[in-house]
């Protein structure tokens, strides 16, 4: 048998910092699940080093950070920590309430996309699928 299984994308959906509203992250998790992806879902208030550990152990392609307060301001630190852990191939997206000024900073720090309130299901799903494929290609060869 030489079949190769087309592995579903693996996405870590999580929250960092202090806020605890999880309506958005639950909806995103359901969207990605319904699109056939495997979603690793966590408690809120994850520390940066914990997100890195989770991404590593779960071998994810994409990390989705949900931020409704100002917790997205920590994301540049996450980007740096991922690079240091040799997880530079993992794509990071942020969703929630992110002011324009901050969005520019996040993109400059290496975030792949920022989703705002009102982003539609198809848009989110197809973006994440695309980023997962990119992550697979960008993986260091074993």
């Amino acid at each position, binding site marked *: 048998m030489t079949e190769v*299984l087309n*592995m579903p994308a693996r996405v870590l959906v999580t929250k960092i910092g202090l806020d605890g509203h999880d309506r958005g992250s639950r909806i995103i998790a359901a969207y990605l*699940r319904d699109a056939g992806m495997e979603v690793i*879902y*966590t408690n809120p208030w994850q520390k940066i*080093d*914990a997100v890195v550990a*989770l991404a590593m152990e779960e071998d994810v392609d994409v990390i989705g950070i949900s931020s409704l307060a100002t917790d997205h301001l920590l994301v540049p630190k996450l980007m740096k920590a991922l690079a240091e852990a040799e997880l530079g191939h993992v794509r990071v997206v942020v969703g929630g309430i992110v002011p324009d000024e901050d969005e520019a900073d996040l993109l400059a720090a290496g975030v792949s996309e920022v989703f705002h309130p009102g982003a539609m299901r198809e848009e989110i799903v197809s973006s994440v699928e695309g980023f997962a494929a990119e992550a697979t290609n960008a993986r260091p060869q*074993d």
Partner: protein
Amino acid sequence: MNDTPEKNGLAARLLAGQPAALARAISIIEGEGEAVTRLLKSIQPNLGRAVVVGFTGPPGAGKSTLVNAFIAEMRGRGKTVAVAAVDPSSPITGGAVLGDRIRMAEHTMDSGVYIRSLASRGHLGGLSASAARVADLMDAAGYDVVVLETVGAGQSEVEMAEMADVRIVISAPGLGDDVQAIKAGILEIADILVVNKDDLPLANRTVRQLQSMLALRAPSDWKVPVLSTNAVERTGLPELADAIESKAALRTIKGARAALSSRTRRLLAQTAAKHVEDLILRDQNPTAEAIITALQQADIDLRTATSKILKHMHESLPDE
């Protein structure tokens, strides 16, 4: 992918206990092919050290919380622990939200603990084949204890639990038909029965029910204990860990390789049986249908039919 067991190759890094290599290897192993075979081959000499413990039981029994408490107990005993937690996939899309490790968050930053979430669908060769291989990889990476956690709802979960050296079936009072729910199929494979949430009313009754059901089992060299735990309050965990270690010690007497070959044996038996089942129950293969008709009309006897089916099976399988 190039998995030569050379220095700094994936297998070498895995055997050196690097969690990132283990994580990658688990993803790779889900597929098939040359790379997988080579990876599995290169870890063979390092297998058989870990004790593989299966935790299964109906939804709501508190498995993840119990596994979390069990990890803490084993860490207290100086053991490293790797966990493969299986959540059901959506039957429609194949996607899954994997949330078991939410209950194990306190161990995220412990380098002596590795946790991996797996979805129940999308495993070539079945979930138990994947589970057996994941357990092998975790074993090869040097973890002392490997936990396979599943929701004991379906056949494939029971089969996965069978891959473990020590099989724990968890129940809790107040799950409605809880005892009935675990009776079917899964009680037979249990080495240890656990009644979790022992602070709930009727906990004692659940314990007694399980004990009386066990009385019907054929005697063996291992007497299945029924233990009470409270994973939230962390009570009953030392007793559970002791029971697991006693059961694992039996395995050690027989030898680690024996345990390993028994895992291989069960996996092969399951996989071969599945092929036969597919042929007879699902494939609508003309030859098989003819044999079934002949048996039905008593043209041939059961013994002949069986040998005909197996012979056809053999001929129709591609040569490896």
